[in-house]
């Protein structure tokens, strides 16, 4: 064995007698970012852009976490993104697409989604196409549910106000006054304690109208009777008012654009390297140890891994974890995971009769009951959110073919009893049921056209992203654990002063936009802690 040392990079290369080498690093960085999911990518991009020496670790060989892509045969599949709200054309808005294009200046082509969604409720004989645009939505709902115009208009107006209030909050992060907030955005304060269902009740929105405007609940994954109204309102309003987009080359385009940006900022990324231990001394993060044997020091850490993983499995020594941190993670309800059936079909959308980009299919829109179904793999009457990519992105697959992805929520616990031996059979059984549900609801024939199929389960997501229990969403945003309470409690719940979180488990809650922007916030907070307030 001999050791080569390069002083400049401080990389120790161990050359074995056999000629192979693994290299381990010992070094010091300003900021280590743990995990190259969207939050981690954005954090590394922002921090390296501010001149910090940044090292980003990723356990997989690809960036992006859930925001990636995979190729089977003639098809390149989108693993997770259905749509991102498009605010790129709105001057005042501070949404994620605007951030990616204008502020970050990333090279990503976005394509618009034509309609919001088609909702098919098989037990209730509902099959309605919901357009983008508040007025258009109100008109369609009035047509389907006569007499609903008044309450639905008030509801949509309120959702718009909530969204405006979030904009106000992000503009006044540093000089926020409760009195001003109450004066300018009183409804935000007054509805903040409530669930989405309570607020709809107070405005007397008819049940049949709610059936048509509730399908997006599955993007947040909490039944409306437990979901924070604030976050729901912001989500509904951002999609309906602004429309939605997808990146042309799947989510991997977003992740790759971030990687390019990080490289240009002289940030560093180490793939295939899992951070095994986060080293703590006297209440401060001092560095990390990796699966490759690297031991690297840092002044601050930004974690795209969840607080659950960080506090319960990574901090070393473990007795440095404050009991309050463990109580925090065991109190919060971990969100659900998904089953996704990715289909490459050997016929075009027209031939198959697929006209819509986004299909929400369920027997009914009782979200409590729908949520119950995600606890059992053999549940009947699940809700599926299915996307025909070609409708928004005609060039996503060769002419005469279609990419269809069928998604249904499942809690990881539903899979807990499945053994290795039963795993493949089980996921096929679940997938077949979802395909049949899609065919029956849309009156289409898919089965004979399957050229490629992959089925992702919580196990798949755990494998590729390392997420705790393969969870796709973060902590469930009930009113007491929604964005505002998380933000207000942020200081009190900072358990290590040089540790910030980003990603779906961070304070902005889950989703592509939230994950990305949480990385920006984490980088800003970390830099101001390192450099002192600007």
């Amino acid at each position, binding site marked *: 064995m001999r050791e080569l040392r390069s002083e400049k990079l401080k990389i120790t290369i161990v050359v074995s007698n056999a*000629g192979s080498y693994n290299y381990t690093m010992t070094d010091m960085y300003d900021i280590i970012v743990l995990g190259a999911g969207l939050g981690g990518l954005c954090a590394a991009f922002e921090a390296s852009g501010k001149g910090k020496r940044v090292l980003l670790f990723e356990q997989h060989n690809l960036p992006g976490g859930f925001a990636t892509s995979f190729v089977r045969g003639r098809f390149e599949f989108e693993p997770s993104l259905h749509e991102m709200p498009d605010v790129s054309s709105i001057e005042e808005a501070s949404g994620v697409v605007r951030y990616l294009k204008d502020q970050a200046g990333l090279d990503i082509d976005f394509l618009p989604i034509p309609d919001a969604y088609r909702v098919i409720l098989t037990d209730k004989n509902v099959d309605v196409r919901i357009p983008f645009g508040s007025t258009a939505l109100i008109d369609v709902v009035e047509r389907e549910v006569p007499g609903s115009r008044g309450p639905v208009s008030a509801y949509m107006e309120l959702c718009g106000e909530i969204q405006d209030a979030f904009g106000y909050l992000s503009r006044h992060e540093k000089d926020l006054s409760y009195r001003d907030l109450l004066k300018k955005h009183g409804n935000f304060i007054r509805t903040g304690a409530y669930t989405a269902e309570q607020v709809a009740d107070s405005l007397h929105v008819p049940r049949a109208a709610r059936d048509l405007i509730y399908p997006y609940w599955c993007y947040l994954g909490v039944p409306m009777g437990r979901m924070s109204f604030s976050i729901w309102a912001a989500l509904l309003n951002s999609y309906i008012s602004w429309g939605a987009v997808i990146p042309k080359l799947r989510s991997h385009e977003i992740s790759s654009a971030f990687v390019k940006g990080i490289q240009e900022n002289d940030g560093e990324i180490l793939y295939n390297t899992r951070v095994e231990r986060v080293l703590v001394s006297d209440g401060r993060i001092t560095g990390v140890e990796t699966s490759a044997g690297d031991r690297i020091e840092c002044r601050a850490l930004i974690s795209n891994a969840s607080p659950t993983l960080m506090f319960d499995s990574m901090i070393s020594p473990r007795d440095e974890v404050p009991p309050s941190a463990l109580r925090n993670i065991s109190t919060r309800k971990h969100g659900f995971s998904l089953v996704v059936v990715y289909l490459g079909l050997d016929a075009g959308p027209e031939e198959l009769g697929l006209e819509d980009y986004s299909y929400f299919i369920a027997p009914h829109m009782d979200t409590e009951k729908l949520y119950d179904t995600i606890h059992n793999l053999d549940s009947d009457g699940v809700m599926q959110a299915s996307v025909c990519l070609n409708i928004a992105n005609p060039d996503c697959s060769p002419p005469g073919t279609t990419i269809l992805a069928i998604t249904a929520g499942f809690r990881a616990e539903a899979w807990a009893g499945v053994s290795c031996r039963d795993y493949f059979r089980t996921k*096929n059984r679940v997938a077949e049921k979802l395909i049949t549900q899609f065919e029956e609801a849309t009156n289409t024939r898919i089965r004979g056209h399957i050229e490629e199929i992959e089925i992702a389960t919580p196990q798949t997501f755990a494998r590729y992203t390392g997420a705790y229990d393969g969870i796709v969403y973060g902590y469930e945003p009930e009113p007491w654990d929604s964005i505002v309470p998380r933000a207000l409690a942020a200081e009190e719940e900072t358990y290590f002063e040089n540790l910030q979180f980003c990603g779906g488990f961070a304070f902005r809650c889950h989703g592509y936009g939230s994950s990305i922007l949480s990385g920006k916030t984490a980088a800003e907070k970390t830099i101001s802690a390192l450099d002192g307030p600007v």
Partner: protein
Amino acid sequence: MKVTVKNPLYDTLSFILHLKKRNRLFKKAATRSLMPAPMNLLAGKLHPRTQVLRITGIRQETPSARTYRLGPVEAGGRAAFFRAGQYIAVEEIVGGVPVSRPFSISSSPEDAAENNFYEITIKTGNDGFFAPWSLREWTEGRILQCSEPTGTFYYESLRDTSHVVCLAGGSGITPFRSILKDSLSCRNDVRFTLFYGAANPEEMIFGSELEELQSRYPDRFSLVKVFSGSDCHAARPEESARPEYTARTEYPGSPAGAEETGFITAKLIKRHCPDAAESSFFICGPREMYDFVSRELEVFSLSPGRLRKENYGGAACGSAGDSFVNGSAGDSYANGGPEGSRTSSTRPASRKTGTAGGPGQKKIWTITVLRDSSGTEGTSRERETVLPADETETVLTALERAGLNPPALCRSGECGWCRSRLAGGEIYVSPENDRRRQADLKFGWFHPCSSYPRSDLIIEVPRNPLQRRYL
């Protein structure tokens, strides 16, 4: 509009009340551990990054093929479960350099689950160095560094037809042994016809086992042995000179299966499988066989999804493509073909060292490997390794030859495990093996295992996560 949900005072105090609720919930919570998470555990069992396996048995199948039985080294270790037809990659150090080779698992998933072993079967030919080397070096007790089972060459009931036609050539039989053992014993809704091409009866690997399966499942499995009488498909037969099959002894449905002479032609397939045009085809064998059979299958007008080929590296199918140690032509240039795509990055490499070769002469280019992950040409980052690369060998082969131990699994462009950044220079990728992501094309990433240098290259290769802790 001023909204009132419960009452104005309570509504206004909402956030404060919520923080109180939050704190109340946290205070009464336990500090129990949430680890380990069942899904991460399952992922670790199904997809361990590394498996350290010991050769526990060796069986001579034919004069030129051997089966190795592999079991976990660690006490209590498990051979990860898999889908019949998948492969494992084995990492070895050959001639002083670490190389990786994919081998289809020839045993059944049931054997992994029940008896905790895999079998891989290796056939030597005059092609490549790994197979003859392994036959010399691999003895019982040897410890092998292996990957998780992986690959997409498996029967999938939601996708494939209920009659599957399998075409195997030489050691290409290995995944089919696994698929047949698994499917015939575990499901009764699918029927298989296997055309197995071999030089002669002595060269048939698993011959008696397959005959046994045929007699045990006469309604669901038909075996058609096709003997070429020479080194099977070793040479591409000319159209005119192609020997037509002649029925030698033919007992359809007989315990021993049908026997034919010649090559696996469309005519022969049609005679045994009248429903061939409506069937799923699975093909595994040497490249010459793919080329021949692909032309034959054109008459069935199969849609792309009905034709599944196992492309994994040379070694999985016993074809050429891994011969750099003995210095003969490497990953066959024919893998490419003149009509393939050329990809050049936005930053062409500065130096051109390619020696303009005359006919029969190889061009040698220079690859600069950036080990550090942020360097781009023009920055001050160190370029760590400079190595020569033969135009007729893949970039992966050049990296391995230089001892860099790059990550690699499938060696055919498909799995993307070797995905690396092309910071400068021009590569060639044959369309058939080009499975790059579209955004990777846009941002300059490539798969070294299916790429040939066409200029000097500057590349960045991720570290190999397989650790040689046990070797």
